[in-house]
Structures are given as C-alpha cells and as structure tokens.
C-alpha cells in the first residue's frame, strides 16, 4: 500500500482544505464537498479482497492523523466527518476498523467535550455514533509496527495551513493583565523612588533592574508577534515565496535549495553514458564528446550519488542519527566501512 500513500494524503488534504475554506463545522457543508468530490468512489475499482482491506486500512489511518492536534479544531472536525464517511462507505465486510492509540484517546474525549461545550452537536453525535457502532480498535499504536527502518528518512510534512497557530502569548498577555501589570509597575516605581529619596534625588542606578517602559514594550512585542504570525500565514498561502525569519520557513527554504542541487546532480549523471554489462562492454557506445568533458573510464568506479552529496547532507544526518543500542551501532559501522569490491582489471 506504500505506492498510493501520497495520493491518498493529497486527496484527503484537498477535501479538508476545501472544508476549511467553508469556515463552518456543519456536517451539511462537509457533505456538499464530499458529494462534489465523489469521495465515496475512492473505494471503487476492482481490487482483490486482501488489497481492498489493506487499502481501507491505509485510508482510515491517513484520515485519523488529522483528528489529533496540532491541527485546528475545524480540521479535526473535518477529520471526524471524513472518518465517518470512509468507515461507512468502505466495501469490505466486516468493515475495517479505525485504530485508536491509547495515548490519543484522552485527546479525542477532550475534543468531544469541546464540541459539546460549543454546541456543535453534529460533531459529538458522529463521534459517539462511531463509538457505539464499534468502529474503533483500541490499540497500543495507530499503525502496526514491523521495525521498518527506512534507509532514507522520509520526513512526513504536516500540512501547514491546517495547523493550529500558537495563541498562548495572546492569551496570557490580555488587556486585563496588562492593566494590572501597569498598576504593579507604577507601585513598584513609587516604592523605589521613596526608598531612594533619603539618600539622593536620583534613584540609584544599581537598583534599576527593570525597563521603565515595561508595559508598552510587552504590548508592542505581542502585537508584533501576532502580525508576524498573520503575515507568515498569508505569505505561505500566496505562492511558494518564503519570507525570511521564523525557523519553519528557513528550514523549508534550505531543503528546497538542497532538492534543487540534488536534481541538478541527478540530471548531470543521467547525461553520462550508462555503463554496459561486462559481457557487452566491448561494444559500448562512445559518449558524445560535445558535452562537458567529464568522461570517466570504465574501470574507474563512479562515486555514488550518496557519496557525492554526503557533504551536503551530513549535518542533517547528524541530527537524525539515532542510536539504537548495539544493533544500530553495528549498522553505523557497516555504512562507514568502505566497500572493497574486487573489480576485474582490463
């Protein structure tokens, strides 16, 4: 099922982003998009029973990921509707279940409570309905794990538009709080002035530990943060333009640069003539000399793409290096060891 993972993800994201644009959490709205996209038909097509079972599993697992934070409330509502739709429309009997991990259950229950508190009864109803239909497997982990260590780390990107924006600073620094802070600050200044009055007219510079304009400063900082956040959001939505500042975007910028570099290396390597198998080497075509003179002789090994680009990716690798007891250590040693392959000398 690995082959269609990206496509399923793309389809789900398209549905959810359209739902997001509706700016509503009503089920009717979701249904309108569902019908327009004919999402039910995702299960159509001749598939063997096992394949269709695997496919259902994959689709449900993909949709489940959107049910959890850090996605916004609206996306999570979309996800629960999506799960409901997919669960009801799948074609295998008995239906494949939605796998819920123990660590996520609390989050989901809280989500239900939030929905009830906000009087979004359709959300709560559908969640409750799924539970009473026994649509869930209560599991340890959302997918079954087979120690599938990938040679390359595929970092699955979160869809940024769906993410909940951090609102803690705004919540903490409210107007009431600012007012109170201003009062305290004023009081503090007074006390300081009165205590230092006896010695000299000017307050002692050694006890000026706090900026005098603390409150306005704090206020403007939070405002700046808010503006920056909004700018970033709209900037991302417009085009692939990345403004500098902010860790997320700069990282992305770097990675896209790296991708371009890799692509250029790749295209270069394709331009070279493919080495023929040993038995046919005597009839190998000579490479067109008009290109850049980078001819490599047959018995000289061309460095692999990985080796050639290792200096670019080294930093990344270091970050991601995981040490898994003795097993991984051995593995690491293996990769560092140069492969000594005996080649026939012509």
């Amino acid at each position: 099922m690995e082959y269609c993972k990206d496509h399923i993800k793309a389809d789900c994201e398209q549905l959810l982003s359209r739902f997001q644009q509706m700016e509503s959490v009503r089920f009717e709205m979701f249904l309108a998009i569902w019908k327009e996209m004919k999402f039910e038909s995702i299960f159509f097509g001749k598939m063997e029973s096992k394949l269709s079972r695997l496919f259902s599993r994959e689709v449900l697992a993909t949709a489940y990921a959107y049910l959890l934070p850090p996605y916004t409330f609206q996306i999570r509502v979309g996800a629960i509707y999506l799960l409901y739709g997919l669960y009801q429309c799948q074609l295998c009997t008995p239906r494949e279940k939605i796998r819920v991990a123990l660590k996520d259950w609390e989050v989901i229950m809280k989500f239900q409570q939030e929905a009830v508190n906000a009087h979004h009864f359709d959300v709560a109803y559908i969640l409750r309905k799924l539970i009473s239909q026994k649509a869930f497997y209560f599991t340890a982990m959302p997918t079954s794990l087979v120690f599938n260590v990938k040679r390359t780390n595929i970092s699955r990107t979160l869809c940024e538009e769906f993410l909940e924006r951090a609102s803690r600073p705004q919540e903490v620094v409210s107007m009431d709080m600012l007012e109170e802070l201003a009062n305290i600050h004023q009081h503090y200044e007074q006390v300081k002035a009165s205590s230092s009055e006896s010695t000299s007219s000017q307050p002692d510079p050694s006890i000026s530990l706090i900026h005098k304009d603390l409150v306005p400063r704090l206020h403007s900082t939070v405002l700046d943060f808010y503006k920056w956040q909004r700018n970033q959001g709209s900037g991302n939505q417009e085009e692939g333009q990345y403004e500098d500042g902010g860790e997320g975007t700069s990282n992305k910028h770097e990675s896209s640069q790296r991708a371009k570099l890799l692509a250029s290396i790749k295209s270069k390597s394709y331009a070279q003539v493919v080495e023929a198998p040993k038995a046919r080497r005597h009839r190998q075509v000579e490479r067109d000399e008009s290109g850049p003179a980078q001819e490599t002789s047959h018995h000289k090994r061309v460095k692999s793409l990985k080796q050639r680009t290792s200096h670019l990716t080294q930093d990344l690798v270091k970050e991601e290096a995981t040490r898994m007891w003795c097993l991984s250590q051995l593995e690491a040693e293996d990769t560092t060891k140069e492969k000594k392959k005996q080649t026939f000398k012509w």
Partner: protein
Amino acid sequence: MKKMAASSNSNIPVFEYKDINTKAFHVGSFRTAWLEKLKPDDYSYEDKDEETQDAEIANEIGVTRETLEELKSICSIDSLRCHSEDEPPDTKLVPPDATLQTLIQRKRKQEYKGTLRIDKISRIDHYQNELESLAIGKKPADPDDLVPEGELILSINILYPALFDSFKSVRPHMTLQMLGSHKLVDLRDAICCISDLQVFGEFSNTPDIAPDFISKDHFKSAFFYFEGVFYNDMRYPECRDLSETTVEWAKTRDFPQFQKAKMEDTYFYDLKVKVGYPYLFCHQGDCEHVVIITDIRLAHKDDCLDWKLYPLLTHKHRVLTRKCAVCHVYIGRWLTTNDPFAPVDPCLFCGRCFQMLHYDTNGNKLGQFLAYPYVDPGAFN
C-alpha cells in the same frame, strides 16, 4: 501516590523512534489503562438496539430527543451516498470521470494490468487471502469458549531463521494472534519451524523407522528474549538453559545485566515489551527467529472469538518446494549420496520413488548408497 501516577503513565505506549517502535511498557497495565478509560459498552461484543443506543448518545452529549432526531436525519449514512438511489454505481469499475488522485493512479495501474497476459490471482495469494479472513468474526459453538470481553489480542510476527541477503526485502514470516492470557509456551508450541522436524542420521538400512527420530522430541530447550530477560522453556527434565552461555559471556563484557525467567510461568500480561521492536526466539540450540510484536489491542466483536482457535495463524509465507528427481510431482523426502541410481549427487527422492528404486519388493536394500531423511522448507505450506 505520585510515584504510582508516574508509573501508570509510563505504561501508555509512546513512540521511541517515530513510526518504528515504541518505548517499553507493561502489557497488563496497558490493558487496565484502556479498560479504565472506556466504558464497558465501548468494548462489549453485544449489539444494542437502536433505541437504547440513541438514548445513550442523547444522554452523553446532552441534547433532547427532538434534536437527536434532527441530527440523525442530517448525519444518516444515506446522506453520504454520491449517487441517486435508483442507479447504484458499479463498484468494480473506476469511474471514468474520476478526479481523485488515488483513483487516477488506480486507473493507470489497472490499465497497465489489463495489458498483461496473466490476469488472475495466483494460487498462493488465494490461500493467503483465505487464511487471513478464515477466522474473522467466528463465534464459538460453546459459549464457554468465548474470549472474555476486554481481552488483549497480540499480533506477533515470527521471521524465518535464515535471512539471505538477496531476500532481505521480503522478510518471510508467519503471523500469529495470541491472547493476553496465553503463556509464552503457547506461542512456542505454535511456532512451526522445519528445524523441529529434521531427522539426523543415515537410514539407508532401515528407512521405515526414520520418522521416529525428529529433533523436536530430542532437543526440547528453547528461549525467548524480551527486554533484557531470557524466558527459558523448562517444562521437561531434559531441558537445558540455552541462555546460560549468552548470559555468562555478557557478564564479562560491558553489557547490562540479563535476567532469566521461565517460559511456562510467564503470561503475556506479565511481559514488558516494546511494540515493533525485534526480539529473539531460539530453539534447537541455534535456530534463531526474530520475533516482532506488531500490534496489541483489545478484542473486538468482529474478531475470532473462539478461545480454542487461538493461537491463530493469520499469515504464512510460502516457500517453493523441491520435488523428487524421478517423478517431479511429489516433494522430496530422501536425500541420497554415493548413489549409483541417482543422476546427480546428492539427489532428492519422494518416499515412493525412493522405495521403488532402491529396494526390492521384500524391502531389501539394493546396492551401496547413503540415504538421509530430508525435510523440505516448504513442508508447512
């Protein structure tokens, strides 16, 4: 009190390495954690009638009957249908005007498949599909055999011992479903490996008694290794502690202390494991299988609920069998060397061809040769 809270938290499985394996947790406490969080109705096997279901939902989310009726009509399953009622679509066909990327891909794939000459499911695939769905939703005849509600089901992959470099991507394995109340010995007995069936020795003079000497009866020791503990099989007096050498060796090296326990005294509930992490099963002295617990979950009403059918085999990798050199029909059972009748040395024969070629009608050996019983890797297919 605080300490207790901390320890119960550590039994909620979380990823150690994302999408690869979890941190170690205690299986029994994991189950109690789930049962505490759920209401008994959530995991019971019973299907309630719609009336009570609705009443409960209304109660849970705090709405009146009228609102619930309205909700029900809005959220009905029929509303999800994307076609009119009188013309149900052909679910076997990818719709021609598909816009979903998944469907576009599937269509391309199927068009390609249509150009292939072979368009049928292979026999092996067919068996495999059958195996997985054979036990789904099976109810026991005797209600006493029902798997209790809230029981854990563990899916365990047991990999085949030899992993050749060229087959590394396949990882041939068998998958067994176990219940939490099973002991480790139940898993040990359910694992089928051909090294248990091997017969050692040369039997050209007495071919009839050969099957009586299989390794399973001779060498009964085995151990599982989970999270720093060796679980030894000590059910029989002739069992030896196979882990001894490893433990002793590790003591002189810079390794954490290993512990030992008995396989027959250990329930799955007592284990502390990581899901998705490779562990070890070793038997016949040096036949080593990697064991991975891929999934732990509560039993569901659509699972096989007959307690007697567990350990339940849900997947089995099939191997090509080597056939008899004479008839090319039956699987080889004898391997001969120094054989004047054989075209090659060594050579495989099925039981019947071996008898007919090497012995006269009275069962007397003809000529000089050496014959060894041969167990084909595909014997369990």
